């Protein structure tokens, strides 16, 4: 038996009085109150890919939710307190990992319901070059958000996320395990098919003639061998004369033929790109929902446009 160290008799009496002051407790519990085991699993997600995976795998057994407004990138969204109350009450919270949705780091969420769907491939996350670090005096330098997070653009990683979602659902509802496993396998098969297709497109791409309008395509570039520089242009904004000047200089030095965009760029932007010999290709990362289009259809449409552009050439 362990010994009580370092206390006096008076201390013991004081502790006893302290305990007495704490008065009576509620009925005994051995563990954290279990959540309801019946009804659909309420699953909150941090982006559209995970919401789509949850809905596909869970079917009627899961209510998959992404409360971020449609016109906001969920990666940079800051939920309202009432949104967080929803996340707190969820049966499962699906996280994307890789520093995606920084708000999670500032929020009070139950640890027991969070599922990091990137846990299986942490070693494959891409560190961002050039992220600013700072320190206070002699402390070690610290960088904020230093990992690329659109991991699902590597469809092989997306398939791993889908498997993780299926396993989390099966753990939460063991009686439905076979349903979840079948649905998960179908989804993974779809993702692998798209992955193979993108690999073929990547194999057909031979030179460094791609540009990326935004630094969100790192996993697409890495997985499918689509090399090229990233700019920081927004589809709904004119980049300004300085950026156009730099692009013109780059074109003179090393001409690019295509530029991937998150959404359709402004007509004026398309015209000026055409003058520089650059064809814009919309490749939506699909971080948020697009009305009337499911996420996999969106990704297939991305692949269609990319394939049409590269193979046409």
């Amino acid at each position, binding site marked *: 038996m*362990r010994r009580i160290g370092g206390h006096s008799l008076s201390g013991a009496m004081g502790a006893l009085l*302290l305990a007495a002051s*704490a008065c009576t407790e509620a009925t005994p519990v051995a563990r954290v109150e279990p959540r309801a085991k019946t009804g659909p699993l309420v699953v909150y997600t941090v982006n559209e890919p995970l919401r789509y995976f949850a809905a596909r795998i869970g079917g009627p057994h899961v209510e998959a939710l992404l409360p971020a407004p449609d016109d906001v990138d969920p990666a940079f969204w800051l939920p309202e307190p009432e949104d967080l109350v929803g996340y707190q009450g969820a049966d499962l919270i699906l996280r994307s990992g890789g520093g995606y949705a920084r708000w999670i780091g500032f*929020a*009070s969420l139950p640890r027991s319901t969070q599922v990091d769907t990137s846990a299986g491939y942490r070693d494959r996350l891409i560190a961002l070059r050039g992220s600013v670090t700072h320190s206070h005096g002699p*402390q070690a330098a610290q960088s904020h958000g230093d990992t690329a997070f659109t991991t699902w653009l590597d469809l092989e990683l997306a398939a791993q996320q889908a498997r993780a979602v299926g396993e989390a659902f099966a753990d939460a509802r063991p009686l439905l395990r076979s349903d979840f496993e079948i649905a998960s396998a179908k989804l993974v098969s779809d993702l692998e098919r798209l992955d193979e297709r993108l690999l073929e497109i990547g194999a057909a791409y031979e030179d460094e003639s791609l540009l990326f309008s935004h630094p969100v395509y790192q996993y697409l570039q890495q997985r499918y061998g689509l090399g090229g520089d990233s700019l920081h242009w927004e589809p709904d904004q004119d980049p300004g004369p300085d950026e156009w000047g730099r692009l013109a200089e780059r074109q003179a030095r090393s001409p690019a033929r295509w530029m991937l965009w998150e959404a359709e760029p402004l007509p004026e932007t398309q015209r000026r790109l055409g003058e520089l010999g650059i064809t814009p290709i919309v490749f939506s990362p699909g971080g948020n929902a697009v009305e009337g289009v499911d996420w996999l259809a969106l990704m297939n449409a991305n692949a269609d446009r990319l394939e049409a552009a590269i193979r046409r050439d």
Partner: protein
Amino acid sequence: MSGPLYVASRYLVHHRGKTIILVLAVALTGFVPVGLQVLVAQSARELTARADRTPLLVGSRGSPLELVLSALYFDTDPPVPIPWSEIERIDDTGLAQAVPLQVGFRAGGHPIVGTTLEYLDYRRLRVATGRRMAWLGECVLGARAARELGLEPGDDLVSSPETVFDLAGVYPLKMRVVGVLAPSHTADDRAVFVDIKTAWVMAGLGHGHRDLGDPDASAAVLSRAGDRIVANAAVLEYNQITRENIESFHFHAGRSSLPVSAALALPTDERARVLLMGRYEAPDERVQILRPRSVMDELLDTVVTVQSYVVAGIALVAAATGATIVLVFMLSIRLRRREIETMTKIGGSRGSVAAVLISEVVVVVAVGLVIAAGLTLVTSRFGSAAIRAFLLS
């Protein structure tokens, strides 16, 4: 009423001063040892109840009692912290769920408890008004803390520095009260609950400040080399976390090294509990795992030992008091010799006279014992509340 009893009662009423003293002496002599027993038994029950509801506790090696009292009642000095990696270690075993606790700071005299939402679920702490904490910098008050501080959701509460001499160290954090818990009649009622990340900010392990890459922040920059910026002490740190500045908050250490005072380990079943305890048996283990109930039982053993000495002392005093009472009655009979002779001369038999005297004794002892029983009942009903009100408030 029979004659002897009537005469005895008239005598006791007539000599009411002496009667009251004798009754009180009998009452207190009976009540003190029994009442103490009741109080100790009641306190022991309360003490073990909270310990029983905490299956396992993990903390740094040292005094088990300090660890238990700190984690269960938040009122003693916190033990040496363990790193967050110990929380992950428990989770990784798959045998138990870890609920971290970070204590040590106070606000308005009430302990601040940094934890996760699982703690509120596990202790079945229901929100009476407002909501649970959702963001860094928000707090939820125990029922008694809210009452004593006069706060409600929407108000602000400032944490106290760890020590008044820590002028160069940790700045107070202004927290937003977002909820008040329903009374639980436990130590949780006195606490101020925050997310554990908020507790780390309070400890100076995390902070928020303006973007050092901003040209306006140049006065706070010591050096700038490429992508690396070194700030000086002039950098303005936020002492309140708002929606506008929350994204500037960060920690200059990996989470696995951040401190935790203790962790509740909630095993899945009895087998998991035993297996988990076995994981901490290595001789070079720097962390201890313990069953709060065992520690409390040892504490109670100590208390019972103390109690038995006290009861023995009280028994001696009671014996002396009893002897004194007997002496008082004997002297009283001696002083009442002429009164007894008068009763005999007017026709009272020896038996009747003896009955009068015995009735006096019986009435005094009976009334004294009734009062002692009443006091014991009151103690068992209101003992805890009385201690709370008069000793600890």
